[in-house]
C-alpha cells in the first residue's frame, strides 16, 4: 500500500471563501485568542501565527478577526474528499487538517506517482485551498511528512526511518499537553525518541506515543476508516466578507458548483433539481429552487444558471454563507470522448439553452406550444414544457397569430371596419358551445381583407352581432 497525504495547513482560513481581488488582512483565532492562521495579506504587515490577538491589534488595528469553525473545517475536508474519488476509492479523513489517499492501486493508471500527484494538486487548486503533500507506505508517516517535510516521496518500508527520524519530536500527537515534552528531556527528533528505552517513553508520555511510533514504521498495523460518499450533495461555504451583490458572491458559487460537479461525476449522476440557500448576518435566509430541463454536472453551466437567476431576483444584503443542496440526481452516463471530432451533443445543448433562457427570463417566459383537441380557438392551443410532443389534428383555415384578447371592431350597416371597411373573403365558419367549462361561445368566423391588403381573422357574435378581430395571417 502507498499513501498520499494531503495536508491543508491553512484550512481554518481557507474555509472563509474570499474574493481574490479584495483581500483584507484576516486572522483566525482559537478559544484562547491566539492567532492560529492568517491570510496572505497579513504577511506584509508582520502578523504571524502564534501571536496573541492583542499583539496583532497593536501591529495593525484594522485586521478582520474570525473565530475558528471546526465544524465547517470538517465539512470542507469532506467536500475535498468527494472530489478525490476519481483518483482512488480508498480515502480517509484524518482531522484536523489532512486527507489520506491510498494510491498504490492507481499509480499505473495515472502514469506514475508524480503525474498522479500533479493531477490531484490541480483538482485541489480548483477548490481554492492551500495544500502540501507527501507519499509514504504507512498512513501516519505520510501524514507527518506532509506536515514537516513537504513533497517527500518514500516508496519502500525500509526507507521510512531515513525520512522520519530527522523530523521534530513535536510531530507526535500528545494526549496530555501539560506533561513535559520530549524536547525538554533532550529528545529533539523522532530518531532520538525511537532510540530511547521504550519503558521510559511509556512512563513519561503514555502508551499512545509508542503506539504512534510503531504505526509510523509499520511495525503495528494501522487500519483506516474509509470515507463514504453521502447520498446527496449538501455543502455550505462561508464568505470572509459579507457580500451584497451577485459579482461579489460568484467566486464562492463557482467553488461550490465545482465541488458539486466533482461529487456528481464520481457518482456518475447529474443534478436535476437543487436548492441554493443564501444567509446573511441576521440568519435571514433566502432559498432559490432550481429545476433543470435535463441532468447536468457541468460546473460552468450550473454557475451561469445561478448567476442569471440571482441577477434577476432580489438577494438579501450582507450575505455570509451559501448552501447548495441537491434534491434530485438522476444517473448521467459519462461523456464519451471520441477521436473523431463531431458536433456537440445536440440533446445536451438543447437542454442547456432552455435552462439558460429560463434562468434569465423566468420559467413562464420560455415555453413550447402545442395543439389541443378543442374547437374553440382560444382553447385549441396551449403552452407546454419545451419539447413535449402531442399528436392532434387541428382544424383548417387558422391564422398564424392569435390575439391574446379579441379586439372589438366598429361596424357600419353590418360591415366591420379595420383601417376602412373589411372585405369578406370566405366564411362564415360557425364555432359554438363550451357549456362544460363556462366558456360558452357562439361565433361566426370570417376571413377578411383590409383595404391595405392585410388578411385578418374576424368573428361576429351571433347573440349581439358585434364584430371582433381575433387573428392575423402574417
Amino acid at each position, binding site marked *: 500500500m502507498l499513501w498520499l497525504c494531503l495536508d491543508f495547513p491553512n484550512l481554518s482560513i481557507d474555509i472563509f471563501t474570499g474574493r481574490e481581488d479584495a483581500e483584507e488582512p484576516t486572522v483566525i483565532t482559537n478559544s484562547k485568542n491566539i492567532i492560529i492562521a492568517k491570510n496572505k495579506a497579513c504577511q506584509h504587515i508582520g502578523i504571524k501565527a502564534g501571536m496573541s490577538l492583542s499583539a496583532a491589534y497593536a501591529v495593525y488595528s484594522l485586521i478582520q478577526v474570525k473565530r475558528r469553525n471546526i465544524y465547517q473545517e470538517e465539512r470542507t475536508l469532506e467536500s475535498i474528499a468527494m472530489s478525490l474519488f476519481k483518483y482512488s476509492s480508498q480515502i480517509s479523513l484524518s482531522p484536523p487538517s489532512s486527507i489520506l489517499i491510498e494510491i498504490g492501486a492507481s499509480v499505473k493508471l495515472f502514469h506514475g506517482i508524480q503525474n498522479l500527484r500533479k493531477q490531484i494538486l490541480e483538482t485541489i487548486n480548483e477548490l481554492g485551498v492551500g495544500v502540501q503533500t507527501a507519499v509514504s507506505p504507512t498512513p501516519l508517516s505520510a501524514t507527518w511528512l506532509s506536515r514537516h517535510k513537504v513533497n517527500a516521496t518514500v516508496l519502500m518500508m525500509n526507507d521510512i526511518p531515513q525520512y522520519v527520524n530527522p523530523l521534530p519530536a513535536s510531530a507526535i500527537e500528545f494526549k496530555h499537553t501539560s506533561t513535559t515534552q520530549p524536547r525538554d528531556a533532550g529528545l529533539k527528533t523522532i530518531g532520538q525518541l525511537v532510540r530511547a528505552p521504550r519503558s521510559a517513553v511509556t512512563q513519561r508520555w503514555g502508551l499512545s506515543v509508542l503506539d504512534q511510533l510503531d504505526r509510523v514504521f509499520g511495525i503495528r498495523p494501522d487500519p483506516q476508516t474509509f470515507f463514504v460518499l453521502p447520498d446527496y450533495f449538501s455543502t455550505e461555504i462561508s464568505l470572509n466578507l459579507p457580500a451584497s451583490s451577485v459579482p461579489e458572491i460568484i467566486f464562492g458559487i463557482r467553488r461550490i458548483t465545482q465541488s458539486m460537479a466533482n461529487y456528481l461525476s464520481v457518482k456518475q449522476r447529474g443534478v436535476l433539481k437543487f436548492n441554493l440557500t443564501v444567509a446573511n448576518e441576521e440568519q435571514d435566509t433566502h432559498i432559490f429552487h432550481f429545476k433543470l430541463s435535463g441532468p447536468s454536472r457541468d460546473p460552468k453551466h450550473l454557475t451561469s444558471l445561478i448567476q442569471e437567476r440571482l441577477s434577476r431576483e432580489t438577494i438579501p444584503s450582507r450575505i455570509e454563507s451559501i448552501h447548495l443542496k441537491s434534491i434530485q440526481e438522476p444517473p448521467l452516463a459519462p461523456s464519451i470522448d471520441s477521436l473523431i471530432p463531431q458536433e456537440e451533443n445536440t440533446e445536451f445543448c*438543447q437542454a442547456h439553452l432552455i435552462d*439558460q433562457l429560463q434562468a434569465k*427570463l423566468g420559467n413562464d*417566459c420560455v415555453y413550447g406550444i402545442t395543439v389541443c383537441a378543442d374547437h374553440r380557438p382560444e382553447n385549441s392551443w396551449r403552452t407546454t414544457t419545451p419539447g413535449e410532443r402531442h399528436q392532434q389534428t387541428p382544424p383548417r383555415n387558422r391564422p398564424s397569430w*392569435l390575439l*391574446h384578447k379579441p379586439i372589438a371592431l366598429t361596424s357600419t350597416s353590418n360591415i366591420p371596419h379595420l383601417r376602412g371597411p373589411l372585405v369578406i373573403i370566405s366564411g362564415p365558419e360557425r364555432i359554438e358551445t363550451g357549456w362544460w367549462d363556462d366558456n360558452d361561445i357562439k361565433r361566426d368566423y370570417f376571413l377578411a381583407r383590409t383595404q391595405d391588403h*392585410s388578411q385578418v381573422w374576424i368573428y361576429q357574435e351571433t347573440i349581439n352581432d358585434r364584430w371582433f378581430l381575433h387573428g392575423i395571417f402574417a
Partner: protein
Amino acid sequence: MTSTLLQSIPPSQVWRGKEHRLNPLGYIPSGFSNIDDKIHGWPLGTLIEMVPSQVGIGEFSLLLPALARLSQNPRWILLVCPPHIPYAPFFSNMGLDTSKIIVTHAKNINDAGWCMEQGLRSNACSAVIGWFPQITEKIIRRLQLNLEEKKVFSVFFTKPTTSYKNNPTPWRVLIRQTGHKTVIEIPKRRGGGPISPISLSNLMNQKCCGFV
C-alpha cells in the same frame, strides 16, 4: 477572344459583377420556386432582416415552408418576442412539428437580443426568429458575430419605420403587398448585386394559410 481569356482564369480569382458568390454555409429552400430560382433559397448562417410594409401580408408565412423543413431536424426553432400568440394549429397545418418550437418573451429589446444570441451560439437551434419593434445597430452586430460559421437560419422582423445610421445587416428583405401579389425586394445581400423584385401570387390564399 474575351471569353477564352476569362475561361483561362480560375473562377475563384476573378469576380464578375453579374455573378453571385454562393453562401459558404449553404441555403435552405424557401419552398417558393420564384425565390429559389433567383437566390437559391434563404441563406444559412447570415442574419436576414425582414421588413414587411405592414402586419398581415403573409410575411411570416414566407418562412413557413423553410421552417417546416427545419422542424424535421432535432434542433429547436426559437421564436423571440412574437407580437401575438404563435397559433399552434396554424403551424401544425403547415406541416411544422410544434414540439420543436420554443417561444420566449423578453422585457426589452436588449433581453430579446440576448435571447437570440443564446439561441445562435448554443448549437441547439436550427432557426432563430425574432421580432423587434425597434432594434439598434449594436444588437445587429452582436447577432451577426454570434452567427458566424453557424449553420442557423436566422431572421429578425422590424418595422419599416426603424431608422439606422448605418445598417450592418448583411441581408435585407422588403415585403409589400400589391393587389393580389406579394412583392419581395432584396435591396441588400452579401456577395451579390441587386436583383429585380420577386413577386409571389397567392401567397396568402393557398397553402400558406392552410386553405385547401
